[in-house]
């Protein structure tokens, strides 16, 4: 794999001047993906933060062909692009190899676009689907999604006096997609660019549908200073809340094992969305979250063998 220095020399396919918040992980994710994929790439976006900030007419941050249809259609619209690619290539109307990549937030992936993604993966279209997962509907102002972690405050799971934040644990997308029999599914983090770019390369080299779920911290929604994005991302991995692993043809592989035990509490403490948990009456939720993290970690280790 090329070094970060080498990757950074590649043409800027997602330019500056877009209107993402400072510290947003979304553009970092897109840039890292495109640094590997290169210019022969078509992007399919779902409605959401990255779509809204990057294509305000008459401007576009995309130096590659791009299509956006609606909120729930990143995968289904890309299915159509891929079908066109197959037939037009057969007819000699499209030349060369193209990468087809969907970018969608957790709303467009875990929730409203889930059916479209499931269908597209089952049909076996040859594309990479990247979920930039900021764990809530950030574009509409921080509402809970099925990717929002237990206990988090969002505007639809507010930390109230009776109900202290989100009641449920988040959905495990990688497991769900792996259960479809997708040839390659992975979980990644922007703070570990080497791991992420390797996964992108691997996904693009794999025939069939591949999915990478990458945690994308959001300073606004997670309530931390905008210069801490990479630090918050790194700690999510270190505390085992967000393990780095991949599932290749059903085979699980852990890509990174934290060297020392970091309680999840340390990661929660960095983020204002969990601030209400640090009170005597809510402390039990932190314990529950830790138990949830431990349970999922053990189950993952078992699968990794």
């Amino acid at each position, binding site marked *: 794999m090329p070094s970060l220095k080498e990757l950074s020399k590649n043409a800027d396919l997602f330019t500056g001047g877009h209107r993402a918040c400072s510290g947003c992980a979304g553009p970092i994710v897109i840039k890292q993906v495109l640094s590997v994929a290169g210019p022969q790439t078509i992007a399919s976006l779902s409605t959401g933060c990255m779509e809204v900030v990057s*294509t305000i007419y008459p401007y576009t941050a995309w130096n*590659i*062909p*791009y299509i956006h*249809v609606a909120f729930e259609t990143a995968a*289904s619209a890309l*299915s159509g692009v891929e079908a066109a690619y197959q*037939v*037009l290539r057969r007819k000699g109307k499209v030349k060369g190899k193209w990468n087809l990549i969907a970018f969608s937030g957790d709303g467009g992936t875990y929730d409203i676009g889930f059916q479209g993604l499931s269908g597209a993966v089952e049909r076996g279209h040859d594309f990479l689907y990247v979920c930039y997962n900021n764990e809530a509907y950030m574009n509409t102002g921080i509402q809970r999604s099925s990717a929002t972690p237990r206990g988090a405050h969002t505007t639809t799971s507010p930390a109230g006096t009776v109900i202290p934040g989100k009641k449920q644990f988040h959905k495990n997308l990688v497991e769900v997609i792996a259960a479809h029999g997708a040839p390659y599914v992975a979980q990644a983090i922007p703070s570990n660019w080497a791991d992420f770019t390797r996964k992108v390369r691997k996904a693009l080299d794999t025939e069939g549908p591949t999915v990478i779920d990458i945690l994308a911290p959001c300073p606004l929604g997670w309530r931390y200073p905008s210069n801490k994005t990479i630090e918050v991302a790194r700690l999510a991995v270190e505390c085992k809340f967000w393990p780095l692993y991949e599932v290749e043809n059903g085979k699980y592989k852990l890509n990174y094992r934290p060297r020392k035990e970091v309680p999840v509490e340390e990661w929660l403490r960095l983020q204002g969305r969990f601030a209400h948990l640090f009170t005597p009456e809510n402390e039990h939720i932190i314990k529950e979250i830790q138990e949830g993290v431990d349970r999922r970690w053990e189950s993952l280790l078992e699968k990794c063998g």
Partner: protein
Amino acid sequence: MPIRALTGNEAMAEAMRQINPDVVAAYPITPATEIVQLFASFVADGCVDTEFVTVESEHSAIAACIGASGAGARVMTSTSSQGLALMHELLYVAAGLRAPIVICEVNRTLSSPINIHCDHSDTMGSREAGWIQIFAEDAQEAYDLTLQAIKISEEVLLPIMISTDAFIISHCMQRVDMLEDSEVQKFIGPYKAAYSLFDKTITIGPLDLQDYYFEHKRQEIEAMWKTAPVIEKVAQEFASKFGRSYGLFEAYKTEDAEQVIVACGSTCGTTRVVIDNLREKGIKIGLLKLYAMRPFPHQKLKEVLSKAKLITVLDRSVSMSTMGGPVYIELRSALYDAPKHPLLVDYIYGLGGRDIDMDQITDIALKGEQIIKDNKVEKPVQYVGLRE
């Protein structure tokens, strides 16, 4: 030219086979299922070059069609009723993105109550989505219009739906004069997309705010204005080559008619027989069969209809405005600034597939004669064949 006995669904599927689109993304729904099924067998038997995407819903069907169209493919799909309703959000997107997609639509009512039979609620429900909408009277028209749809849509860059009536057309077999495969290909011509993701670095579907949205919407409206003459041009080309006439509407014995019945879809066939019978009795009555609901041919209709004393509209769907059915409402509006106003009356019929027969249409026509005599419409909106 081959002559076949085909149902409406078979006729549309055959047209799709001969068009041989690059991509078809479709989801089955009664009563349009057969179109998708037949097309699947064409794909399985290698009769077409099409990439067939068996999506998991109509929403994904139209999303995939939009994606494929953006990628430079000639694209078709088929649906009906709830399926069209599920597509509703993206119908606007397809039109706004100026994607020339063709839907073979079968008119079926909408839930609730759930019902699989014919009325025009589904198609009429999407009449403001920016799609060209054309109604076919029978299987022959369904076939011919599907071929014309490709040319119309690709010239004006607006998506188009050709619709048949559920079961009455979709499942009834009739004689269909087909064209040779080569004639179809020659008529529609090779496809060259106006824009394609594979051709240049283009951003399709950007965020379009207060400072540009309005201008882009205006361009879409302008495209619809330009569609009426294109429908006529393509119809003329079709007629000159293959001898069957189409257009925005068909005026049958309207020249000297005092009463003109306006309808769309399969009921026009029944109505035509009634007109002939009444003409034999000396009643000056005609039929105006509406092909195009979108664009609504208001200017030409004004010319043709304002000479009559009474316009009797048969509407197979309703508007919840409580002002009648959509065809009636549009016609009333079209005739508002006509130099001479005919009287107008609307009959809502056939909701949920209830049959309408010759006796009922004759009765409507004779009531119309009385209205002309009295020069007065007592009840502008009435129901046919309904227990009240």
